């Protein structure tokens, strides 16, 4: 780790002011990606602005059909939340299967989606559930938020405050785990909503995306058999030492079928 200045603001306004002043500042939420990267000397921010002291970023509130989760809410808290388990059980289950207990108790919703790892779980839920990402500057539709590998619609100094998840009729997330990292080799989130099924895929491509072709295939009958003839495009798939593009494309279909079957 290289030297940096550490700040612990008490409010979103103070955090925003600090990042504007910094030469190369970084917000740190749970630090589950940033800190290892810094320890490996692959990142060297001039200023680290720790969001852990900002009370307004934490907590879970259910208001009618909207579940609002503060950006600094830890995965373990989402997994254990009675409100989330009642309103969107698939979201609680997703949070409860991220990483390991240490990661779940430090890692946060805001940190995960701001980082936008191509194999992260939360982005699939944000897209498929039609969530809205609220920042200190504006609101961003979930499916417009993730723009590329480790890239998002966030401006340089913009800070995620909370995410609003509309309650679906039903939802399910199926993840095929990388045996080493336990990130998703492929993860598929399916939500039944009034306008129709919404599907998002993570792990398979440069970043999580809404799977329109899967949704179209499910328009008639939203069941696993409806996907029997589905083929994910191999040429768009990621390939690495853990899974070839061909295998990932196959897993997209299998995980989608399983998620649809579980989405009752």
């Amino acid at each position, binding site marked *: 780790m290289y030297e940096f200045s550490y700040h612990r603001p008490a409010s979103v306004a103070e955090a925003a002011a600090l990042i504007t002043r910094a030469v190369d500042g970084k917000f740190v939420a749970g630090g589950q990606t940033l800190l290892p990267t810094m320890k490996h*000397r692959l990142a060297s921010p001039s200023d680290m602005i720790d969001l852990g002291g900002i009370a307004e970023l934490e907590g879970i509130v259910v208001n009618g059909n909207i579940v609002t989760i503060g950006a600094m809410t830890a995965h373990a808290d989402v997994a254990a939340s009675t409100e989330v388990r009642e309103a969107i059980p698939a979201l609680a289950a997703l949070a409860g299967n991220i990483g390991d207990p240490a990661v779940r108790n430090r890692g946060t919703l805001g940190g995960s989606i701001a980082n936008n790892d191509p194999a992260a779980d939360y982005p699939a839920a944000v897209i498929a559930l039609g969530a809205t990402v609220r920042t200190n500057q504006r609101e961003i539709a979930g499916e417009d938020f993730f723009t590329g590998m480790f890239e998002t619609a966030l401006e340089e100094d913009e800070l995620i405050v909370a995410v609003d998840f509309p309650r679906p009729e039903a939802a399910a997330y199926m993840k095929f785990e990388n045996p*080493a990292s336990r990130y998703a080799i492929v993860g598929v989130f399916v939500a039944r909503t009034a306008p129709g099924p919404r599907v998002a895929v993570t792990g398979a491509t440069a970043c999580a995306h809404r799977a329109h072709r899967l949704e179209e295939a499910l328009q008639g009958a939203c069941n696993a058999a409806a996907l029997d003839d589905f083929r994910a495009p191999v040429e768009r798939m990621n390939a690495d030492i853990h899974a070839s593009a061909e295998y990932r494309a196959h897993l997209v279909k299998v995980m989608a079928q399983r998620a649809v079957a579980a989405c009752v």
Partner: protein
Amino acid sequence: MQDTGIGARVRRKEDQRFLLGKGRYTDDINVAGQTWACFVRSPHAHAVIEGIDTAAAAAAPGVVAVFPGDDLAADGIGPLICGVTGPSDHGEPHRAPAHPALAQGKVNYVGDHVAVVIAETLAQARDAAELVEVDYRPLAAVTSTAAAASEGQPQIHDVAPGNVCFNWPFGDKAAVDEAFAGAHKVSSIELTNNRMVTNPMEPRAALGEYNAGTEEITLHMTTQNPHVHRLVLAAFNQLAPEHKLRVVGPDVGGGFGAKIFVYAEELVVGWACRKVNRPVKWTADRTEAFLADAHGRDHVTKAEMALDEHGKFLALRVHTTANLGAYLSTFATMVPSYLYAFLLAGQYSTPLIHSEVKAVFTNTAPVDASRGAGRPEATYLLERLVDICAADMGLDPTEIRRRNFIPQDAFPYQTPVVQCYDSGDYETALDQAIELADYPGFASRAAAAKERGKLRGIGFSSYVEACGIAPSAAVGQLGGGVGLWESAQVRFNPTGNVQVFTGTHSHGQGHETTFAQLVCDQLGVPFENIEVIHGDTAKTQFGMGTYGSRSLAVGGVAIAKACDKLIAKGKKIAAHAMEAAEGDIEFADGNYTVAGTDKAMSIAEVAFNAYVPHNYPEGVEPGFDENAFFDPMNFSFPAGTHVCEVEVDPDTGEVEIVAYTAVDDFGKLVNPMIVEGQVHGGIVHGIGQALLEGCQYGEDGQLLTASFMDYAMPRADNAPDFKIGYAPTDPPDNPLGVKGCGEAGAIGAPPAVINAIANAIGVRHLEMPATPETVWRACQAAR
């Protein structure tokens, strides 16, 4: 006394401190004036060093010194050695390139050590290490085991043309060829034994301290064998004379082989602390562990079995290429040769065996012993081939094994490959495993799985291994530079408690408990009054350390011998005190008694008399403290049958191990709970190799699996509950009747797992690690 003696399930006394975070590991030790070392490592797999500029690093804040390889060479330190002179290559010596502890003009793998920076803090050392400017001229690299010796590959060492270290034929080739010519059937297999990174939980570390007054170096380090480290560092690396070097292995967080060896970093730390006259500390981070610890396995093999019409094995032919990495590590050449080819008989009476092992250099980290060392490679090959033979002959896998087992009445059994097995009863172990695993019920379980869309398979593995390493004469004949006896000292203090000094080293094995049970049983001293001490060359008289499942089979016997001496001496003291003839004194349960009388005194009272000899027999030395050395007469040969049952999801290739049974012959068990822990850990290690762990280098020589994000270690949810059984035999050559148990699981498990998957899918073979994609592709091919 029985509740803490031999056979008792005593809870490990050392776990109290480990579980409460009160262990004391090398990195926990900090001393006044301590500096930190950071190694500059090669980012290239193969490159010439055109120059090294240390000026900027030396001027950086907090830097005490920067040393490139020339400084080390100028002091005559190193190079690192391979402690085995065999095997020969058609009568010629194997090729042993120089292995400087800090590079001399060339680097040969990513992570190769180039220079060291010593600074006041670790952060300063790391900052300065980035400022060492090394001018590399990159060369083409070779990493492939199979291709390393092929025409046109980059040459790594001038002394090893074609990148070949040795090409070692072994066995009667003509007789084997003749048997193949007349065979009813020939079954064959080609397979890879995947490269593994051993990854003990605690990374390597060293703390060197120099006492300028006494001119002694004390090196705290992560070691499985402190005296071996001292011996090699003194005699071959010129670090310091043996009597001026103290090596301490305090608590050590796992070794699995990786902490046997003499590495560059520990040597450099020992040298640098004298050079800068300050204590120097180094602790590897996990990346360094991946890059620069010795790796394990990495074979490519073709094997054939000649069979008669009844499925009896007539002859075995094996061609193996073994990757030794960029340089020879401490015991590298012994692993794919003597620890491999000498085990190719397995549990079978195959009369003729010929093997040819080609050992090659590549631009990868050195490869050396890792839990099992050679024996997992032999067992995997053999037990996969036996399943192929069964398929080719239309026999059940258990039947072909049964037909070829060495019969129980044939022990001791001289194999055609040097080893003479001490004892065994392979059929009893198989029968017990079949029953425990409910093999007869497998068909209905498979049918039920099919209903759920799963492919269920069962796999057997009947292994034998050679451990309890080793008879010194045998080691010498094989070109090993050491004797592999063990030593012990058992000391009563005047107050009656006992200190046991062993030359073995416990880094997870539970010696502090097992050895205390041995002494408790033999001397009748309360368990809690016995302390086992190990890991410090200044405390323990001598020792060869812990590896090759030798600690109980060799070290335990040395302790028992020292106890025998105490008991014998005590008889003289007791006879004098009780005014009886020595011949009338009996010893049992901690008490000396006069036969036929009620006169008795405890061994603690005898010990007190020995230290306060006011009324003492003439000619007997005071003191109650005995030492012993034990050199085993033979290796020890644990054996058993493992049965793995899997369910494969054909849609994803995911494998679930749904049942695992192990029936082992470890001879007599001292602490069955500790043995079970060793068996569980070994099996999980083997499951890791079979399903998860595949160390991969890119063609450019970069390590692709350099962190736990990419290198999958087994976790608790990768293993089921185990069914454990024992089919013990009594090894005649071991005075305690014990065998070794630490490596058995890692040896038996990989073929059991792969045999089960192949059985489930209905394919002849698939490679390790059987990742989901590998299994999915095999399922596709089998459709």
